[in-house]
């Protein structure tokens, strides 16, 4: 079957198997910025935003979200023009092996859209589904707080 998505603002059409999960469809079609790992929804490495809400793409059936807006880490900023969250994660040292980073930043991005002034608890709760094998959680929380500061200083997206 064919599905259409708006991925990072660009309409894309793919041929999929109706039983496939979104993670596999996106990676097969070049979106290797989305990481895959557990296929159970427990690690969060595969996080994407679907209509602005973070989801584990390994548990989302690709056919179910036909027509939706999907945002990957590349959709919020790039090397030349990083989002304050991306900059903050680098500056604070919240990136170690980097495997969880795209998903973690997208969860943080969704949080800041809803709540621009999160408490530490809000941040921890929002990132609770993104596991970091390097256990860099303290730096991640600090990075999100630093990004809030950057955003307030006007270095907005």
């Amino acid at each position, binding site marked *: *079957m064919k599905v259409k998505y708006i991925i990072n603002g660009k309409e894309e059409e793919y041929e999929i*198997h*109706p*039983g*496939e*999960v979104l993670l*596999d469809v996106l990676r097969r079609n070049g979106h290797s910025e989305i990481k895959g790992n557990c*296929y*159970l*929804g*427990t690690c*969060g490495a595969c*996080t994407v935003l679907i209509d602005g*809400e*973070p*989801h*584990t793409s*390994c*548990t*989302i*059936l690709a*056919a*179910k979200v*036909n027509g939706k807006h999907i945002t990957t880490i590349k959709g919020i900023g790039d090397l030349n023009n990083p989002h304050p969250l991306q900059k903050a994660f680098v500056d604070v040292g919240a990136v170690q092996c980097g495997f969880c980073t795209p998903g973690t930043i997208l*969860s943080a991005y969704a949080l800041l859209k809803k709540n621009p002034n999160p408490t530490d608890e809000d941040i921890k*709760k*929002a*990132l*609770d*589904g*993104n596991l970091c094998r390097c256990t860099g959680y303290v730096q991640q929380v600090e990075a999100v707080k630093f990004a809030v500061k950057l955003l307030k200083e006007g270095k907005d997206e």
Partner: protein
Amino acid sequence: MLKLKGIEEVYYPQTIKETVDILRSHGDLAEVVGGGLDISVFPNPRIKFLIFLDNLNLSYVKDSSEGIKIGAMTTITNLIESDLIKDYMGGCVHSVLPEIATELLRNQITVGGSLGKREPYSDIVTLLYGLNGKIVLSDGEWDEIVSINDFYKENFKRLLKERIIKEVILEKYPKDYFFSMKRYVRNATDIALFNMATLLKTEGKMITSARVAAGSRPKPAYLMQGAGEFLKGRELSEDLAEEFGKFVEEHIEVGTDTRTTEEYRKNLSHIYAKRILLEALEAAK
């Protein structure tokens, strides 16, 4: 990793009637998909047809004369963000919800999906058992309201081949009701090793009715009939809390699985039963 190899076709019905017509035409080979978490994690190789409910406008929390109506496609996140749920039962229900699963999964888990699957570890089923939720089943032509007890007494999976869960209705209990839910996890994002929800009606310190539900036993959630009888007509006190803890530990039906033992679950049930009554005692003061 293609987990659902057998899927031949998916449907996006616009109405409940259309959904049920598709469901009936494919029988056991079709499955209605709420959030889709369960089927993607535990794929059923027999299923060939998936029916997505996303176009049915079943994501809502609204007030009505019958109670608070929660659409089947409402996610845990939707519940958390609902002002009605924030205020419901003094915030006791709202405080439990952010502890369930993770933010990412709370965005996917639906109320209807949780009820329709009745997975053993579901906190939502225990919560709704405790609150005596009413389930609205619909075939698109007429709706039937059944209590959660009756729903699970029947062969509910068979019922759901002819109808779908449209919504859940939560009674708006007056202030003389007390509700509490407890769940034990090894870490913040773990599924519960045991959970318990209790609804008490009190007159002062006197308990006039009680519902005690338990889940993650590891069997699915159930209503502990004897516990309600035990509490009815008793006066809240620290002694009763301890007595109730012992009673629950002795009578609760729990077992052993790979995650923990029957003995451990019994110990947890004692502690939670006692804590819930102590909280109710505090609230009664």
